[in-house]
């Protein structure tokens, strides 16, 4: 966080605050909409411009996000827990961007709260949302069970609760998620096809003890069971993190025979980098939607891998938001949604659409599903800094009711 101060950056920030003040008087922007700079830049400025931030506090206080709700139909709040990784930032960015685009711009007043992994804080924030009489709460929970009490409180007061990503077990909450089992299975099936049902495979798993990790592994194991020719020669955790995956792969690689395929839950680019460092050929790889992995699938950077990329998409927050809006206006039944997995092969990749040369390896390319018929179509800018797409085009297709 400690960066050298660019003398200009403080100015920029000042202007931003000024712009904010003006906008408060004139426009109907929502809380999230004011974030026009990149998240990284904003965070960098956080410390540098602490004094300015302080000066701006009364302004913020004077701007209740729901005060401009005249004409808007629904209050929807996003309750997020942890905000410390790229995925969560993109998830929140697309949410912010959506609030500035139709239909949400005219129909929804939104707000966003982060609690970190502190369950009692998230619970307290949700009770404040209840006090604020929101119509719906969209949440990425810090615990599957620990918020059940407060979720029950919300739903029993007629508030719609939609959970996504880190789901909750509360029966009264609507769940929006991909099938992690199918994801693991889809990766494995592709591998079987690639190597004709015979060969050595390594499995790079996720954070042990989580449901997501368990389900993905189960999905893969169901495929291996059907294909006795596949030999899983090693199974180790990559913690869904590129550098951890790289380190752990590098550690086991010398002891491994020739690898015919890689099955990886996350940190895929890290696993491949370990192969490159060890001068091993890159086998067919099924993995997450990291930009680094997809760049390699396109051969950017000198190494090319045959890959199959899919993941838990950041746009789940948009599916949840849209579901909440549709349920509230009565155009969709109150039921859980399974968001279909979108698997991309080398041929499906297109620079600037679902791979980005100027974004870091850790960027998740599946902030959009791509194409007007897909579940979600949104521009890259929205995922990068939370600003509205210039063409104001936002398409969210819920599965047929």
């Amino acid at each position: 966080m400690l960066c050298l101060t660019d003398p200009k950056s403080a100015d920029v920030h000042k202007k931003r605050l000024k712009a904010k003040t003006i906008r408060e008087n004139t426009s109907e922007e929502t809380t999230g909409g004011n974030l026009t700079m990149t998240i990284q830049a904003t965070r960098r400025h956080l410390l540098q411009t602490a004094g300015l931030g302080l000066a701006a506090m009364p302004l913020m206080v004077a701007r209740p996000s729901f005060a401009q709700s005249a004409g808007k139909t629904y209050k929807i709040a996003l309750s997020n827990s942890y905000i410390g990784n790229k995925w969560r930032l993109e998830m929140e960015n697309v949410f912010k961007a959506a609030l500035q685009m139709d239909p949400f711009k005219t129909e929804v007043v939104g707000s966003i709260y982060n609690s970190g992994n502190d369950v009692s804080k998230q619970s307290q924030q949700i009770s404040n949302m209840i006090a604020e009489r929101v119509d719906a709460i969209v949440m990425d929970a810090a615990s599957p069970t620990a918020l059940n009490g407060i979720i029950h409180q919300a739903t029993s007061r007629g508030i719609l609760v939609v959970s996504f990503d880190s789901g909750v077990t509360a029966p009264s909450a609507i769940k929006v998620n991909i099938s992690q089992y199918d994801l693991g299975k889809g990766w494995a099936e592709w591998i079987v096809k690639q190597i004709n049902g015979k060969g050595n495979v390594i499995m790079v798993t996720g954070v042990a003890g989580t449901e997501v990790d368990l389900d993905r592994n189960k999905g893969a194991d169901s495929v291996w069971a059907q294909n006795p020719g596949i030999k899983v020669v090693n199974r180790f955790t990559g913690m869904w993190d590129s550098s951890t995956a790289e380190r752990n792969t590098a550690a086991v690689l010398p002891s491994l025979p020739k690898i015919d395929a890689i099955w990886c839950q996350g940190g895929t680019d890290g696993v491949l980098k370990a192969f490159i460092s060890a001068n091993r050929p890159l086998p067919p790889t099924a993995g997450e939607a990291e930009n680094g992995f997809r760049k390699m699938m396109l051969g950017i950077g000198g190494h090319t891998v045959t890959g199959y990329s899919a993941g838990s998409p950041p746009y789940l927050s948009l599916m949840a938001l849209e579901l909440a809006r549709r349920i509230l206006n009565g155009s969709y039944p109150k039921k859980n949604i399974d968001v279909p997995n979108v698997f991309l092969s080398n041929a499906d990749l297109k620079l600037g659409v679902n791979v980005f040369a100027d974004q870091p390896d850790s960027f998740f390319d599946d902030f959009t599903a791509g194409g007007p018929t897909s579940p979600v179509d949104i521009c890259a800018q929205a995922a990068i800094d939370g600003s509205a797409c210039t063409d104001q085009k936002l398409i969210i297709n819920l599965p047929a009711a």
Partner: protein
Amino acid sequence: MPLPETILAASGPRRSRLSHALTQNIGLALVVALLIACVILYCVLYIVTQHRLPGGFELTSTLNNTMPLAFAALAQTLVVLTRGIDLSVGGVIDLTNAVAALTLMGGPVSTTLWTIAILGIGALCGLLNGVLVAIGRLQPILVTLSTLSIFQGIAIRILPQPGGAMPPGFTGVLANPNVPLSLIYIPIIGILWAIFRRTPLGVAVFAIGNDAMAASSHGISVKRTTILAYMLGGVASACAGLFLAANATAGDATTGDTYTLTSIVAAVLGGVSLFGGRGSGLGALFGAFVTVMVVNILFFAHIDPLYQTFYEGLFLLAAVIAANVIGQIVRRRR
């Protein structure tokens, strides 16, 4: 007995009882003032944004969300008073929360017995810490950091996946969602603390926190007192685990983790000295409420989500600095 020859006469009137009470409980007085200020600020923000007064729901949910932290802060206080620190608070909460999720769904008798057993587990955890610190002569920070991992590990083994359930009656008593029943736990903690303060153990805990060597030269067993303080702390942590489970209506073996740090924050806000020997459990309780009120205030101030933690830190820092400055002024004016 004849009077001694020389009398050291008083040179002036003594300070009033109130003046003594205030300067000696300045930490407690300040946290109460801080809490009142927070409540007022919260109410103002609430009225401005919601155009109505906060009501029963707000009170009930704030109480229910704070009670686990209040007990965790109490646990931390008991140990910090001995000039120790308990980083395993979060681990004990994880463990007791996990056990609670698996065992409490039974008849009322079974629930009661298991509740007592869970408090016993807390005491055992504290015993382990206390023995390692007092008899093993190890640094409290190292011991409790290690046991934190151990307790977390056992908890995750007992309850690998979040789940379980709480009997509605149990939740109704500990974290009633409909009426602010938890309000009664504040005076209960107050009375228990007053009793503790008036037991030889309470005096001994404060004494060894003041100066273990001096305390032992007056016949206070430093080892016994240390172990008992950690054990009581363990029981309080177990209470936190139970209240957390009751409020969540289910168990999760990782939700206690954050309490290690927040319990220290609440205790310090409550005027408990990390150098031991000074502080009050009641202050820690109010400190816990302050931290939750800060979350509420920032919520209704509608701070940009990326700035929320920044302002939270700023707020706490300002509170600690203000308390310190006021405390020094009061002491100097004596």
